[in-house]
């Protein structure tokens, strides 16, 4: 194995990359894809009180070709897994996946020795960028997940983190 050449030292597209990342981070269009309980909280996040549209992420696209972000909102079972995988494959690059809720992260409450139906975590199917725990996660948590994904893209956090009082 020859050592990998660090291309970033030779050629830098820093400015352009930053602009692209900013553009992508501010325009994360999720796929209209609800599986179970978490989908209701996902809808609630898009609604007036929490308003996901503030971050430009309210454009729920029903077609995977137009979506950037797949929010796995619920349990994926063995019957559904090929369809989810197909949806992921149909999305165009660059694409991101958010595992919303315990079921998507690990199978959640439905995992026990000898279970026969659920996939124990969607990261067994494809890479996941952000994990948002909860059963179901609150809308604030989903927004936090979007912010985390933006942070992953741009390297900067949008809002300052609230500090806990000692």
């Amino acid at each position, binding site marked *: 194995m020859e050592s990998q050449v660090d291309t970033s030292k030779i050629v830098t597209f820093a400015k352009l990359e930053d602009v692209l990342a900013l553009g992508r981070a501010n325009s994360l269009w999720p796929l209209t894809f609800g599986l179970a309980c978490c989908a209701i909280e996902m809808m609630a996040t898009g609604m007036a009180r929490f308003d996901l549209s503030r971050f430009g992420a309210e454009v729920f696209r029903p077609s995977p070709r137009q979506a950037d972000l797949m929010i796995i909102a619920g349990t994926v079972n063995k019957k559904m897994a090929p369809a989810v995988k197909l949806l992921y494959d149909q999305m165009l690059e660059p694409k991101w996946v958010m595992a919303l809720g315990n079921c998507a992260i690990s199978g959640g409450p439905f995992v026990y020795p*000898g279970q026969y139906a659920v996939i124990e975590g969607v990261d067994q199917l494809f890479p996941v960028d952000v994990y948002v725990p909860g059963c179901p996660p609150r809308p604030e948590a989903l927004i936090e997940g979007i912010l985390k994904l933006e942070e992953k893209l741009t390297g900067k956090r949008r809002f300052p983190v609230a500090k806990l009082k000692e």
Partner: protein
Amino acid sequence: MKPSIEQLTEAFSCLAGPVPAEVTAPSWPVAVYTVDANLKGYHFDAAVSPAQVVTAAEILDRFGFGLDAVTGVDWIAQNEMEVVYDYFHPEINLRVVVRTRVPRASPELPTISPVFPGANWHERETHDFFGIRFLGHPNLTPFLLPEDADFHPLRKDYQP
């Protein structure tokens, strides 16, 4: 049509009788009895032989009952499977349970889907979970389980 429990008992009395010869299961009750709804949640309990479930469904259909659910219970200790038919009445407070038992080795009984088309899905689901075969069912393919599933998870001896 608003039937009373007495009418139901009378209609079902023709089903009660000696145990059919083909049934070998030891604990075979063919009986009709009313129960305290406050204790059990249903009013009328009829245990019939597997061949009689269609007749029972026809009787209840005549009285205007609606199909609530079809389900199975795996009594592994007795080596039997119980199939339970729940019926509700849309106008009066009268719940009927029709139950029958089939041997675990060959769990087969006729379908009631010609009488109650809604039973189609319930029977498919019961077949999924318990492997109980409903003879004459139009489409007894895996339903809630993956299309290629050949296991019956709610059997007590199911090992994944």
